[in-house]
């Protein structure tokens, strides 16, 4: 599904060049649940941004479903992203001006799904995430756990092949955190590939494999299952 080889990313200022990813290589197979761990500044988020095609690498190869995407321009990346990748963020990143329903509906709008189909699909996902009763509420009217459930609903509404989760439980208490992890596990069991960046050993245990990073490089890789 995802294969990166010798991936590099630098951040440059006039005087300093910081290496964020240093010839990083690994592969995530279809249907796999991988956790990426490491201390702050080790390059986890940079990696996730590149995997999510929000940013481009400075060197190396990135094969997504067998397609080399490292040199894609922004338009091509955006197109591939909206059909294949769903995102879950630590801070939920819901749009405050839109209701729960509208937030979840947004990816379907951008992929050109017809209104009637959109409604059916959003209702189905909201039902599944047990947030249907809050469909007309705005994000600021929900608890953190509910907001993250909405974010997960938004991530899966397009049936993406891959979900990229960046510290999905970082802003939640343990009970809400567990609920979100259960949701992600369910999605994975249904066939969605999941790559999750986390600081939490507890959350990482939900995955099949833990990739540990330091200074932009892979240090270890533990298979859990």
């Amino acid at each position, binding site marked *: 599904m995802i294969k990166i080889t010798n991936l590099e990313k630098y951040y440059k200022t006039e005087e300093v060049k910081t290496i964020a990813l240093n010839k990083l290589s690994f592969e995530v197979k279809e249907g796999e649940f991988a956790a990426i761990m490491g201390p702050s500044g080790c390059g986890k988020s940079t990696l996730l941004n590149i995997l999510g095609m929000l940013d481009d690498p400075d060197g190396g190869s990135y094969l997504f479903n067998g397609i080399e995407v490292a040199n894609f321009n922004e338009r091509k990346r955006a197109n591939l992203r909206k059909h294949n990748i769903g995102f879950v963020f630590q801070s939920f990143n819901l749009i405050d001006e*839109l209701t729960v329903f*509208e937030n979840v509906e*947004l990816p379907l709008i951008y992929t050109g799904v017809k209104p009637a189909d959109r409604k059916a699909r959003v209702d189905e996902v909201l039902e599944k995430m047990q947030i249907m009763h809050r469909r007309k509420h705005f994000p600021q009217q929900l608890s953190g756990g509910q907001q993250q459930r909405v974010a997960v609903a938004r991530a899966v509404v397009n049936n993406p092949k891959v979900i990229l989760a960046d510290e999905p439980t970082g802003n939640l208490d343990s009970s809400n955190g567990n609920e979100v992890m259960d949701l992600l596990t369910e999605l994975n069991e249904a066939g969605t590939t999941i790559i999750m960046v986390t600081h939490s050993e507890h959350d990482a245990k939900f995955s099949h494999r833990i990739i540990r990073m330091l200074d932009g490089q892979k240090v270890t890789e533990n298979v859990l299952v």
Partner: protein
Amino acid sequence: MWKTYFKTAWRNILKNRTQAFINILGLTLGTLSCLAIMVYIFSQLNFDTHHEHADEVYRLRTFIGSTNGSRESNFATAGPPYAFAMKDEFPEVEEATRIVYLGSENSELLRPKGQKEAYFEAEGYLADSTIFRIFTFKFIKGDSKRALNEPNSIVISSGMAEKYFKGDNPLNQYLVQGSGEDELLLKVTGVFDENFGKSHLRPNYILSMNTPGMGEFVRNTTDFATQNFVHTYVKLAKNADVDLVRTKLPGFLEKYAKKDLEKWGKSKKLYLQNIQDINLHSAGIESQIGKTSDINYLKMLAILALFIQLVASVNFINLSTARAHKRAKEIGIRKTIGASKNTLIKQFLCESVILAFVAAFISIPLIALGMPLLGGLFQTSLTIDILWNWEILAGLVVIAVLTGLVAGMYPAFLLAGIKPVRILKSGSFSSSSGGFLREALVVFQFMVSIGLIAAVIIILNQIHHTLDKDLGYSKENIIAIKLGTDEAKDAIQQLSNSLGNIPGVTSAALSDMYPSQVRDADLAIYLPGEDPNKIQTMVYNGISPGYFETVGTKMMYGRTLSETDTLGIIVNESALKAFNLKPEKAIGQQLMYKTGGETDQALEIVGVTEDFQFTELKSVTRPILNYMDSRTDWMVVRIAGNDISQTLDKINTSWNDILRHKPMEYRFVDEELERLLSEEKRLARISTIFTVLAVILCTLGLFGLISFIAEQKRKEIGIRKVLGANVPSIVNLLLRDFVILLLIGLALAVPITWYQMEEWLSSYPDRISIQWWTFVLAGGISFIIMIFTVGLKTIRTASTNPVKNLRTE
């Protein structure tokens, strides 16, 4: 997709109410100006298009110069014989008609037969019966084909029908024109709808040309050189080539007018102008029927409106880019979940277009409420109905869309170009993007404000200069009483005696023209013993003894006129200069006046006055000769400055005692002078209003921007204060940049405004020169407004407890 755009846009507007309020207020003021000007421009378009033969009807214009080429004037009129000579000469000319404009000044006294109550009625025409074959008038009563066939026929407007006959059928009823021996019985043969179509012809009544009096004179005049007061219109055949007819006009003049022109020492050129062009393309043409507009004036107004709207759009751009960070998170999320740059650009443009439409919707009721004010401002009658024209509504939609796009374009590209990864990583976005553009736009706003303020100062100065200049007579407290009828002229002596007994009346005299009256009648004069073709044109005026004392013009040499002076004249200094005569030798000098007959008439200068401004305030002083006349059209009366209204009442009583049932028509000379500057005053009023609007908009924009900057710099201000900075030093820090921008704006405004105003002033022979202090004052006013706007907010921010600032940061 669009539904989502609109929904998000609307919720964003509601969420950022202050910003939205400033934006909507600014865009509303801008749109309101555009709409107001659009309404006015629309009211001035499509004149004379309603006539059935509009494309084929032309006005014959005349350029008149003297053979020595000294002065050429451009008239809307021609001589009496031209119309039908053209019809005889050109196969292309199917119909011709002549209109004598009885004028807005020279109103006629009319009353229904058998009634005593009479009115002075202006806007009367004397016309050939063919007028209705050329122009389309909607007849409510009577038959346009036959209405003016008979002598003493009168066709009246629907308004006049109501005024004189109050609901009765006016057809075949009689009106009495004039009084005494001059009384003329006129039969009403038609009533036309005065509200049908927009035309440069707006008569209250039309008299048949074959009526005795002036009509008779016009019909009997065969001279092609003089009497250039007849408005002449021809209708060409459907497919006739007007350019071909134009090329044949010099030959036509050669054939018909050469002899007369040589005799009078004049030269003429003719031009055919389509009637649909008259309203907008008649600037500088003399002797027009009524008032016309000017395409350049409309263009200037449109440019002003454009500037105002641009200033409003600049506010939008500045506020949107300055607050871009507030939208950064939303943009990041949208891009992450699949929004393309184009989609986001559409979304942001949608927001700006929605705001522009909100502004447009608010403008409609505001303009409807302000319609009477607007009519007053533009000095034209405007009704709310004009708003419902599809052209106006379509124009408003275009304005809203264009404004939305212009204002929204840059912010949309800036916002949509934000990279999601930067936002999602840091959670914020630096608003320094667009900083240079923002500064450039603030400079633009300062430039427009300062330029407009300076322009208004210059316009007002020129108006004051013109009004306050030494006219060569004293304009205050002179009234001119109209002696329009024979009855009044017969009673001149009686009136003079009666007025002489009124304590408030200082002196009174007779004159054919009162000072400031616009009349362009002149004579061809040459020096005896010199070439009779070396003529100078001189304005002429009949006066009675005591005229110059009454108006306050100083005699330089010689004496005033006496009752026995039949050929003695008084000229002004300009006349001496024109003939190169030495003042000390002028008395007794003869001047030859071309009579057009076999022999010319010698006149003798008996006195010379200082120059005085006779007609238009804008023009330079022209040579004038004054001769003795005891039956003039006007009586000028100087009254004492105290208790003017009581003196006027007494004059009125004297008039009524002598001339019962004839209303006294009078005017104050100083008011007439101001009226002559009405165009300039209108320009000044409009410029002032737009300038105030532009300044309000700039102030709004500055307020929005400084609020944002102050908010952005809260942390910096807090730290500086903790480190010991005082309030003035922080105010200085925030203000410094704005002062620099204002100075750049000032530097740009000076040459542009200077150049534009030099152009404007060049039309004034007696003009002011632009002073440097004008710009210092304009810059100073802008500076003070800026200090108030920016300063107050800055002081408040600088005075806040630093702990609070740092904590909230």
